[in-house]
């Protein structure tokens, strides 16, 4: 029999349906009497809407309804789920984010009108017949310029484009440390704006049952319960028991499908108005201009060191782009997911960070794979690398001198986190060995003989997964709890249905979670089914993002299985006429200690549902348990990535020759799935470092609005990855797991840029902004030659 327990590389059970075209995505769902929506979007970055003439459009064939902002006057705006306060304690500016633009458009793609017709084609035709009279306004695109007094103001009620001005750390102590420093390294860098580009564009179907008053929203979401909460309570005023949100198979999210989007509310509301289902599926070009974008930080960072290279202090200030409106979790990304990570793997004693969040006439920016942690890792690992070069210390050695040591855990950083465990030097050593770090000079010479410039770069990242506990994040401004929920339902014949609040949109939960449950219960892996994504089935849940599914969702499942076993032991004790304290559970059997008496898990399950011989006076029938697991802390995966690149000096083309990743994810349930997650993260990190960038022109037009200009990484852009792991088990969750979903995207960009800069070291290049495109590299080479 195939091994399917914890730690086994079980093939993903969901892949058969995905690979044979049998996945069921929102766009695959078609309901009886369904109408189709087309959304009219702003062609301008910033403009007032003088008038909208929909008379001609309303007469077009097949048109069912045309809605504009007045129709949504009874609805709330799209809510923001996190409040960040300014330095002085006052709350951030939180302007209204209307469902449809109210008198003004604020980015290209801002929804202005909703057209519903019998067919999608008819809706689109009618949309073209709507006459909208705009007056273009000067846009605010560049963040620095947007904060100048003469900038156009995007939200009149705010009065400026500043969302918040926030700080973290001990400013005075940091300044004092800089004054006494032997050496200070300074660096200006940009963390480039990205578009998430999941394979499946967003889609939504609203449905309304007038006989029960129940709404259903089918949507491409990473967290259907959160959407039910936000949309029901804050936008449409539909109570939970009358609103079902169902996110079936979802084709990738990378963060962009966490948020509540206006289109979800539009479809749900319109279905109620029209008493018929209404469907919308984004075109790819719509995704580019309406899915939340990622990153987009402009940072100045300084690192103070003593004469031995010990880090004395770090300070940075960052402008973080919020886009035109606050997306669901946008304010927490540059603050609590970024500034709190600025200690990295190091003992830097004092850190101070200032963040200004800025509104611009661009698509809202929110969490994208890594969310704040890639930005933190990038600035730390770049400035450390520059410092190593300035002080003529090997980059690996400089990092080694500053690592938090294994005996220092739990370790309180100066930026609010407590790392529970880790062994950074062991991971560095393993990576250097695997990447043959010491053999680099020979490879560099060999490359030079071929006319190529070879460089090596490393990055030692830390990340924080499973953001928690709820009371702490609540104090930091989260407007939701961050626990996870699981129900483990043992069916009468002993099969198990697991209802999880985690949501799988490519992560392989159906396999991983089934491994955990079958292993714990000693039952057949195929006897365990994982159900997710449907608020009508799953009790509650906070969804999947921030690499939280195994650490938080998995722990909730673990707790529920423990409860099931505990109850089952009582039933088994009754059946075998033994004391419950003598019951042992092993390999799917309940045994009476010291005897040969045993009863199988399936018999206990059947007894629970056919309770003829059952302690009914003490115990309810049935065998189903639910847990709300609220973690005690974040988990802290960490690792070392080493990259080698070769640059063609004639063209500036960078080729990634090798990439080694050593990660400490704690205990691992399915190593194949973990490796796949690392590969995907590395691909996105290489994409950010070398290929991807979202570019607006000065008028706020999106220049990279399609794959003709937005460069997604493809297989031939990537090397064959080399990955391995080290293990320090998480100390505060039952499985000892940390999470692996984002690490690759967090740790890789600085490793690549460090390698590129290393390759260019003879050309007087100390920094190159991402993405290191051929032209940019060539320009640096040309300047260096000059």
């Amino acid at each position: 029999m195939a091994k399917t327990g914890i730690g086994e590389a079980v093939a993903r059970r969901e892949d058969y349906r995905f690979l044979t075209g049998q996945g069921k995505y929102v766009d695959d769902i078609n309901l009886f009497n369904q109408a189709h929506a087309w959304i009219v979007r702003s062609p301008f970055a910033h403009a007032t809407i003088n008038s909208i003439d929909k008379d001609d459009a309303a007469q077009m064939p097949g048109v069912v309804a045309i809605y504009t902002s007045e129709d949504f006057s009874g609805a709330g705006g799209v809510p923001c789920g996190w409040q960040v306060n300014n330095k002085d304690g006052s709350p951030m500016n939180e302007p209204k984010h209307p469902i449809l633009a109210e008198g003004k458009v604020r980015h290209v793609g801002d929804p202005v009108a909703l057209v519903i017709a019998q067919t999608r084609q008819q809706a689109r035709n009618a949309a073209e017949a709507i006459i909208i009279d705009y007056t273009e306004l000067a846009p605010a695109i560049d963040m620095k310029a947007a904060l100048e007094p003469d900038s156009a103001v995007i939200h009149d009620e705010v009065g400026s484009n500043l969302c918040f001005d926030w700080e973290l750390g001990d400013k005075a102590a940091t300044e004092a440390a800089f004054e006494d420093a032997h050496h200070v390294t300074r660096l200006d860098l940009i963390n480039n704006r990205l578009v998430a580009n999941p394979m499946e564009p967003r889609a939504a179907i609203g449905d309304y049952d007038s006989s029960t008053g129940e709404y259903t929203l089918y949507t491409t979401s990473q967290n259907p319960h959160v959407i039910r909460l936000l949309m029901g309570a804050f936008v449409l005023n539909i109570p939970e028991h009358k609103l079902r949100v169902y996110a079936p198979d979802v084709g990738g999210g990378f963060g962009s499908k966490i948020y509540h989007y206006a289109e979800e509310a539009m479809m749900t509301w319109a279905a109620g108005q029209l008493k018929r289902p209404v469907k919308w599926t984004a075109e790819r070009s719509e995704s580019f201009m309406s899915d939340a974008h990622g990153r987009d930080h402009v940072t100045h960072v300084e690192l103070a060191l003593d004469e031995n290279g010990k880090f004395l202090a770090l300070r940075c200030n960052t402008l973080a782009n919020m886009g035109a409106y606050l997306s669901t979790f946008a304010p927490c990304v540059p603050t609590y997911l970024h500034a709190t990570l600025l200690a990295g793997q190091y003992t830097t004693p004092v850190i101070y960070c200032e963040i200004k969040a800025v509104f611009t006439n661009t698509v809202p920016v929110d969490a994208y794979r890594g969310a704040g942690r890639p930005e933190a890792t990038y600035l730390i690992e770049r400035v450390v690398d520059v410092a190593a070069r300035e002080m003529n210390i090997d980059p690996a050695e400089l990092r080694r001198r500053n690592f938090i040591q294994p005996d220092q855990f739990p370790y309180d950083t100066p930026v609010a986190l407590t790392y529970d465990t880790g062994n950074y030097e062991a991971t560095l050593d393993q990576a250097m060995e695997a990447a043959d770090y010491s053999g680099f000079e020979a490879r560099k010479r060999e490359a030079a003989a071929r006319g190529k410039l070879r460089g090596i770069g490393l990055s030692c990242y830390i990340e924080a997964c499973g953001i928690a506990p709820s009371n702490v994040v609540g104090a930091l401004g989260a407007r939701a709890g961050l626990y996870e929920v699981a129900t483990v339902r043992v069916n009468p014949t002993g099969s198990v249905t697991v209802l999880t609040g985690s949501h799988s949109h490519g992560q392989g939960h159906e396999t991983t979670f089934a491994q955990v449950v079958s292993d714990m219960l000693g039952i057949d892996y195929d006897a365990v089914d994982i159900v997710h994504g449907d608020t009508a089935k799953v009790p509650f849940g906070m969804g999947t993002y921030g690499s939280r599914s195994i650490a938080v969702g998995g722990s909730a499942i673990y707790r529920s299985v423990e409860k099931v076993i505990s109850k089952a032991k009582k039933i088994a004790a009754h059946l075998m006429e033994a004391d419950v304290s003598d019951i042992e559970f092993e390999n799917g059997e309940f045994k009476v200690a010291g005897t040969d008496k045993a009863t199988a898990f399936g018999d206990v399950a059947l007894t629970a549902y056919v309770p003829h011989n059952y302690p009914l006076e003490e115990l309810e029938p049935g065998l189903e348990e639910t847990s709300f697991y609220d973690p005690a802390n974040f988990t802290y995966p960490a690792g070392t990535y080493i990259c080698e690149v070769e640059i063609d000096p004639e063209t500036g083309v960078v080729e990634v020759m090798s990439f080694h990743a050593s990660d400490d994810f704690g205990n691992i349930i399915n190593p194949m799935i973990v490796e796949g997650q690392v590969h995907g993260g590395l691909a996105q990190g290489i994409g950010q470092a070398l290929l991807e960038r979202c570019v607006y022109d000065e008028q706020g037009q999106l220049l990279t609005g399609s794959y003709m200009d937005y460069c997604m990484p493809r297989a031939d852009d990537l090397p064959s990855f080399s990955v391995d792991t080290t293990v320090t088990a998480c100390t505060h969750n039952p499985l000892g797991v940390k999470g692996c979903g984002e690490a690759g995207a967090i740790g890789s960009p600085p490793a690549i840029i460090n390698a590129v800069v290393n390759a260019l070291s003879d050309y007087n290049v100390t920094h190159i902004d991402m993405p290191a495109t051929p032209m940019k590299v060539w320009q640096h080479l040309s300047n260096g030659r000059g």
Partner: protein
Amino acid sequence: MYQFAYHHPDNLNQAKELLTAEESKPIAGGMTLIPTLKQRLAAYESLVDLSSIAELQGISETSESIRIGAMTTHSDVHHSDTIKTKIPALSHLAGSIGDVQVRNRGTLGGSIANADPAADYPAAVVGLGATIHTAERDIAADNFFTALFETALKENEIITAVSFPVPEKAGYAKFANPASRYAIVGVMAVKTRSGIRVAVTGAAGSVFRVPEMEQALGDAFTADAVRGIAVSSAEFNSDMHATADYRGHLVSVMAARAVDAANA
């Protein structure tokens, strides 16, 4: 896309007849036309699909040239044994266009009729000194591409085939846009029986020849002969992927690589 009538005639005369209708347009592989229609950037009353017309298909060889039917796909050009043997650079070029799906649908005739400034085929047509055959006449390559997305073709004039003279040697080197994989700069360097031809695509609004390089290569057909020759980039395209300066630099680099490929 807007609605249109779809015709798929099986002979050239029928196609010509259909194309006399108002707002009609021939469609070859549709690799540019279909996305344009889907984005509603263009609309036609009718499309005349040329893919069922036998006269537009096939690769044939004469003693001094290879004739390729206009509706031959990039994939068929790439994989043709005749072309691999006689003009390997052309096979290589066809195999570098787009991706597998594009190469399986896109055609030689469709590409050159569209005259995208970043397409690969114009470099081959001009570099190899090909002749474009239409249903009405023959057009020399040097007279075919007239401007950005413009050719010597009259309205709805159908290309039937292109004849490529077999060169002594030829090489194609392309610097692809990392996103679209179209040519930012593509250079075809050819030693023909009647002289040297160097054609550049991607850099400017339309494919062009580089007389200075042709002269230098006439003296010595080596990469070094062109590496130092700077072309004026004053009229070159400039965008976020490549400034005119960078394109100018790449013309010299790619020309040298094209010569290396020809000599390999």
